[in-house]
């Protein structure tokens, strides 16, 4: 099955063509609009998916040498996300499906992240546990079979990616903060100071990052600026130890508790090198296999939406032209069928 996927849930406009697990093209606005259409798209237009969606879809088709008639179906993110942004993708794909008389399906953005693990040659087997970590989500889900989700734990306040971004801002680092902290921390001493791990006294699989953020804030306020500057890598490393430590501890404990032998990590924070090495190291003694998506499929992209959509279309799921966008759609919540 050859599927066109479209993703417009937040800041990125993306379109992709896949066939099975193979990604034939995966175009994301921040890259190709700038390259192809001359000049930097101003920040003012950051959510103007409307202006970008047609050239992005055309670029995805062209790069994969696909004509619209060659496609077996369309997949589009219909939640969660910003309502205005979601509606652009949903209505555009509805238009395509109506004109070309092809099946289409609404895909949950978080389900898309889960399926980023099935792009390329991953060899992920069921059942597996997925740690979903991004700017908007922090949750542990068990996937027993395709399209079935058991939520085991989630954040009670801030998402971990949000904690990275906000702590980077407190430390005066440029945006986006995650990669900056990751890079600086490599040269730092993670035991330079101790930051608290949220909910560490509870036997829970939930997360809390609000307290860690406040702890870094208090630390910054109580420390001389020149000391902060001199020890920036150490502070980044210590923050990362606490933030990533919580992810690793809860994920490994969940896998052991539920006797799951495979862990996948998905979402933007899956690109963090410290998380990658710590998770793999912690899983090894228990013979648990850890899988990370390729870097390019960690952040928001349409290839993962197409892959999840393919799984649904193959099983006969179809959306009707009444498909709506749902800003607060939860993983496993079905709102895409007639």
């Amino acid at each position, binding site marked *: 099955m050859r599927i066109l996927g479209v993703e417009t849930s*937040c800041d990125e406009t993306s379109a992709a063509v896949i066939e099975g697990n193979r990604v034939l093209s995966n175009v994301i606005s921040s890259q190709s609009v700038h390259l192809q259409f001359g000049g930097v798209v101003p*920040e*003012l*237009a*950051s*959510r103007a998916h409307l202006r970008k969606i047609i050239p992005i879809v055309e670029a995805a088709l062209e790069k994969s040498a696909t004509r619209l008639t060659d496609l077996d179906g369309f997949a589009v993110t219909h939640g*969660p*996300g*910003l*309502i*205005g*942004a979601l509606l652009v993708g949903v209505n555009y794909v509805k238009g395509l499906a109506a004109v070309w008389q092809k099946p289409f399906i609404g895909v949950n953005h978080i389900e898309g992240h889960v399926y980023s693990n099935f792009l390329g040659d991953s060899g992920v087997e069921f059942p597996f546990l997925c740690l979903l970590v*991004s*700017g*908007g*989500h922090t949750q542990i889900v068990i996937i027993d079979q395709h399209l079935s989700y058991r939520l085991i734990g*989630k*954040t*009670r*306040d*801030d*998402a971990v*990616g*949000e904690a990275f971004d*906000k702590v980077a*801002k*407190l430390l005066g680092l440029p945006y986006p903060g995650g990669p900056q902290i990751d890079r600086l921390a490599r040269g730092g001493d993670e035991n330079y100071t101790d930051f608290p791990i949220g909910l560490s006294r509870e036997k829970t699989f939930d997360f809390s990052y*609000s307290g860690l*953020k*406040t702890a870094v*804030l*208090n630390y910054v*306020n109580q420390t001389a600026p020149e000391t902060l500057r001199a020890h920036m890598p150490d502070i980044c490393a210590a923050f990362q130890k606490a933030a990533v430590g919580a992810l690793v501890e809860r994920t490994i404990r969940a896998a052991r508790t539920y006797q799951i032998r495979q862990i996948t990590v998905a979402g933007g924070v899956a690109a963090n090198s410290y998380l990658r090495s710590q998770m793999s190291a912690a899983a090894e003694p228990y013979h648990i296999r850890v899988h990370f998506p390729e870097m390019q499929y960690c952040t928001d992209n349409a290839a993962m939406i197409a892959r999840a959509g393919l799984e649904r279309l193959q099983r006969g799921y179809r959306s009707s032209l009444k498909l709506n966008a749902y*800003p*607060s759609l939860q993983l496993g919540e079905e709102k895409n069928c007639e």
Partner: protein
Amino acid sequence: MNRQLLLKQRVNSPGETEALVSDFLSHVSPGQTIALYGNLGSGKTFFVQTLCRLLATEEPPTSPTFTIINEYRAQGGMPVYHFDFYRIEHDAELANLGLDDYFYGDGLCLIEWADKIAAHLPLPRFEIYLDFVEQQPEARDISIHLVIDKNIF
């Protein structure tokens, strides 16, 4: 605009914040807007979480920094809209959000980083300021104002 100070208090613990929120809640009814002001880590999300716990929303609130708007439903069915404009840099980015439908609807609007959309905030509204206290990381000075259109008088 007419601004009236309703309350100013130092809280020393989450428990004291909860007591303050509980008192404040008696002023609040559906359709109203509550704008929160305070730096990173000052407790805006905690204030919202406490308020929502007292309203018994179905889902406990989490930070909407990423999604900008979270929607909950309070016991009794009142919609609660939880906004976070931290990521907003330009007014033009607000165009797609349909803010007026929320601000002038029947739900309770709770707005974090309200200073980012100062020109678009509805009247009347409550404004809540959360300030750090020197040398006391756990304490906050909280003040609550009612802001109304002066033409009402």
